[in-house]
């Protein structure tokens, strides 16, 4: 079956040049080109695409809005933003929406590789898994912590500091406790202490904070949803934490950059989250359900790949050292 990729950009020259440049993919890929968000939605309604690559700045509906609608209506479609402008505001608006960013001007190789990865992941995640997700009522709201909005604003604020972030996080004691545990390996001090929480944020890194909070909250919701299996749930979380710490260490030791280290850390933490989501009846593998849900939540591509491919034989798509390699090493 051919992969389906939709390009959305208000600049027709971009669309036509993409079409020319990606001529080489024409045998394996069906490509759609539309000049705006509305047209994009019409095209999706017509026949959903596996992957949408959209520009950010467009008249009318902009990229962030368009991709958010795509997420809500076609949650399993992969979403990529191709933008000439990488300011913090637009990044923030798309943070739970897109799986990866491409910066204009972007070279052919990078575009091709991204299409390759996104489509491969999409086809790996079977339709049955999607149904399973929907049946369980997992949606974006499910994993959204109440403090998330406030945290976003705090991160954007001019006077954002470790202390102000800590003060915000402290509203959720469970979260703070887990973060301290993750950072120190033991809940050594009172989670109510701002200084401790601030220190922990500093140790874990401000960059991963948003994804980390989302990930931990996902565990929290899943644990709450199934009280009977709490003990099992906690053991999965504890194991995840262990793998996260190891994977991060391994990534650092291998000279990985900040992005890959973060991927390894969060991927390690979430690697088995799917096991808390399967209901046993459908027989859909846990990794697929987990990864699918992360697609829905707009987690970074690298993290979803870790969750999806960790247990799959022969599924290490890149020969380079990446987050998946780190978690592999930590897990084995």
């Amino acid at each position, binding site marked *: 079956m051919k992969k389906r990729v939709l390009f959305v950009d208000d*600049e027709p*020259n*971009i669309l*036509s*040049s*993409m079409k*020319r*440049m990606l*001529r*080489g993919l024409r045998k394996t890929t069906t490509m759609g080109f539309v000049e705006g968000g509305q047209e994009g939605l019409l095209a999706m309604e017509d026949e959903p695409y596996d992957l949408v690559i959209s520009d950010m*700045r467009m008249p009318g509906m902009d990229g962030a809005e368009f991709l958010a609608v795509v997420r809500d209506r076609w949650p399993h479609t992969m979403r990529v933003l191709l933008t*000439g*402008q990488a*300011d913090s505001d637009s990044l923030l608006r798309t943070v739970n929406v897109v799986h990866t960013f491409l*910066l*204009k*001007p*972007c*070279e*052919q190789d990078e575009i091709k590789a991204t299409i390759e990865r996104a489509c491969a992941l999409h086809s790996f995640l079977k339709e049955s898994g999607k149904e399973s997700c929907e049946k369980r009522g997992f949606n974006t709201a499910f994993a959204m912590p109440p403090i998330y909005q406030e945290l976003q604003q705090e991160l954007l604020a001019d006077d954002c500091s470790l202390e102000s972030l800590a003060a915000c996080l402290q509203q959720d004691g469970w979260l703070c406790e887990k973060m301290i545990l993750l950072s120190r390996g033991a809940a050594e001090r009172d989670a109510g202490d701002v200084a401790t929480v601030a220190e922990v944020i500093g140790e874990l890194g401000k960059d991963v904070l948003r994804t980390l909070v989302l990930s931990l909250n996902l565990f929290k919701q899943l644990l709450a949803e199934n009280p009977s299996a709490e003990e099992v749930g906690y053991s999965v979380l504890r194991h995840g934490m262990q793998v996260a710490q190891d994977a991060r260490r391994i990534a650092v030791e291998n000279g990985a950059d900040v992005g890959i280290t973060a991927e390894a850390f969060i991927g390690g933490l979430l690697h088995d989250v799917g096991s808390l989501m399967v209901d046993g009846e459908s027989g859909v593998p846990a990794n697929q359900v987990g990864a699918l849900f992360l697609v829905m939540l707009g987690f970074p591509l690298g993290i979803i790949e870790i969750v999806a491919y960790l247990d799959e034989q022969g599924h290490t798509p890149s020969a380079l050292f990446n987050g998946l390699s780190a978690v592999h090493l930590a897990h084995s």
Partner: protein
Amino acid sequence: MNSLPPSKTIIHLLLSLCFFFATVSSVYAQHGLDTVRIGVLAKRGEAKALERWSATAIYLSAKIPTHTFILVPLTFEQIYPAVEQRDVDFVLANSAYFAGLERNYGVEAIATMENSRLGESLTDFGGVIFCRAGRDDLKEHKDFAGKSFMAVDEKSFGGYHMAWFHLLQHGFDPHKSFSKVEFAGTHDAVVVAVLNGDSDIGTVRTDTLERMVSEGKLNLDCLKVFTHANKNADHFPFLLSTSLYPEWPMASLPHVNRDLVQKVAIGLMAMEMDDQAAVDAHIAGWTIPLNYQPVHECLMGLRVAPYASLNEMGFGEFLRRYGYILGIFVLVLGIVSVFTMFLNRTKRELERELCFNKKAESKLAEFKTTLDQIYDCVFVFSYDTLRFSYVNQGAIKQVGYGEEELLSMAPSDLMLEYTAEEFKVMLKPLVDGEVELLSFETGHWHKDGYLVPVDVHLQYVDRDQNSSRFIAVVRDITKQRTESERFRRLFEASMDAIMVIGMDGYLDCNRKTLDMFGFDSKKEFLRLHPADVSPKTQPGGGASVDLANDRILEAMENKVALFDWVHQRKNGSCFPAEVLLSTFDMDGETVLHSVVRDVTERQRVEKEKDKLHAKLLHAQKLEAVGQLAAGIAHEINTPTQYVANNITFLAEVIEDVQGVVELFIELLASAKKNNTLSSEQITQAEELLADIGWEELATEIPEAVNQSKEGLERVTSIVQAMKEFSHPGSKEKADTDINKIITTTITVARNEWKYVADLETNLCADLPVISCLSDEVGQVILNMIVNGAHAIAEKLGENSEEKGRIHLQTSYDTECVEIMITDTGDGIPDAVLPRIFDPFFTTKKVGKGTGQGLAICHDVITEKHGGTLTCESRVGVGTTFTIRLPFTDSLRTGVLKQ
């Protein structure tokens, strides 16, 4: 005034003594700790005084809550003793009485009343002299001779003394020239008497006439007023004949705490016209104390209290001046008693004499006590030996020697400035009877070695050879001295140089002047002319002498001149100064008062500010460029994307097309060989291939595509670099790869160097990251590259085919990362080299450089990073800048671990 018959003195002394003791036991209420007593002259009785001034006491109590003010009404007779005994703390009396109190007891005016008269508020008043209208015979003062004169009261200041003194000053002595002088008792009565023709001429205080007019008691047309042109009295709203004198003052006694005095003065001055206190007192308020000297002059001129002859003098004053007479009296009394004792030896007489003797002894003891109680010192010494024969307790206290010690000493032992011989010479006029009294100021050495400034009044009494002696009344004038000392100190302690300049040069200067101009001795400085402490010319051009004269003229014309000036110190160095010249009269001569302030520091601070401002501008410019770059970047990135896409596409398809054409050429060759095509077709195809020059195209097309790709990559990198380079924010140091900064900067500055130089880099591959402000370090490197390029361009000249070389190299050791930037430009002359990092220093043409570049670089490297920026240069060969950025401690250990 100095010589009085002794008998009269004694009688008066006794009277005064009685009065003195009576006063001591006066009835004034006990002093509370916080009670402040204001003595008020009750000239119209106690009730009136209370009615008028009680509100003022209440007002002050409210203003100064720590104290309770009470009012003590005092009659004319009570006021002197009350002040002398410190029964009151403040005293409110009319100007004439105040003058007496000031003179005798050192009370000090702290505020002057603003009188409210007919809607005017006045701080001074005077006297008015008048006659009936139509007296054409009375035109000038000299016409007054033989006429009768009516005044208010013998003791009235405004209603008599002022007019008296005024006439005296104008050569007319009322006592001698008027046919008679009478006193009407009240001001109104004087006016009535003149109107009725009871008297030819009258005087009352100012505003009396106007008041009577307003009350309908008088028509001014009926009077002729001898007004006197007084240039200081233009503002005065009432008819006036005499000089003006200040109104009643509130005065403080010397014992009162200065703090309280200040509070009271401030409180009084804050009094509003509608405050009850002001309403009750019929005044508009209080103002700063005026000068009461005119009052003293008037009273002195008239020889009335306190300048009256002895019979009107207070006891204290008397003792102070003539206490020595007491000594004589005591001695005489003693001798007489003893003598009498020997003469009358009958028992009865003896008893009587004994009784008398006892009385005399007790009197003697009493007088001795009195003498000893005097604050002033009394020394008696003989002419022959110049040894003291008597000293009172005051003297003992003042000089610190015991009585025994003193009696073996001579005056010259106390006054080290005179030798015994000199002192004798000084005494000569007294002995010869040329003068009656010798008054002078000197210093007395205290036994403990300090000098007590004193005022000495020396008199030679009884020129009889046997008992001739000198009597010295000596007063400690430390307090007065302190006053002038205080002003001297103000003068000396000023941080500005203050000079007084007369016609011939400097008259005086303070200590700071010597410091500022670098002189050791005042004498040396005062010998100079103002022109000697300025350089020959001022910075703006023009000789200092001429400019200084202009300024002096300006000050003379406008009373003041303020200007900037460059002064020169004794050692020849110059400093910028601000000079304030003003003129004032000193002993009848107009002199210049010059205040010179060294503004070196201020100018330095201003320069610093300018520098900061320039930096700020620079930073703002950079930030604006950064924002612009970020905005443009987006606009550039989109077209770049599709151009790049298309180029990529072309590169791919051209390969395909090339394959197709090659195949076609092969087919053509084989068709030609096998004759499968007509020769026309073949010729046509061959011509077409030759026409488009396929062989050339086959190599040129891929090359064109590759070049386009390269160009796009460069566009992309420039846009990226612009954004990175001018990215605002990141004001915190962050771990930075210096090599990356260098490559970015080279890209940004490409346009600056590529036409004049080849740029080489030798970047250390394993250069550790360093904590720094990447933007600012980038700026520095940019500056260095641009400067290098400019230097090379300068050396090569315009349109040169040649190119210079710029070399960038990085390395590191345990301490620092080192960046060396070398150019093959024209180099920096040795003379200029030390100044290149000075702000505003530039050798570039006007408009080419601000002179800020290297200064900012230096600041960034040294101040912000604690590093060093050094420069080596040889003219004609080139320049090397070396930047060394130190690792912070943590980073250094990090490097060492590796």
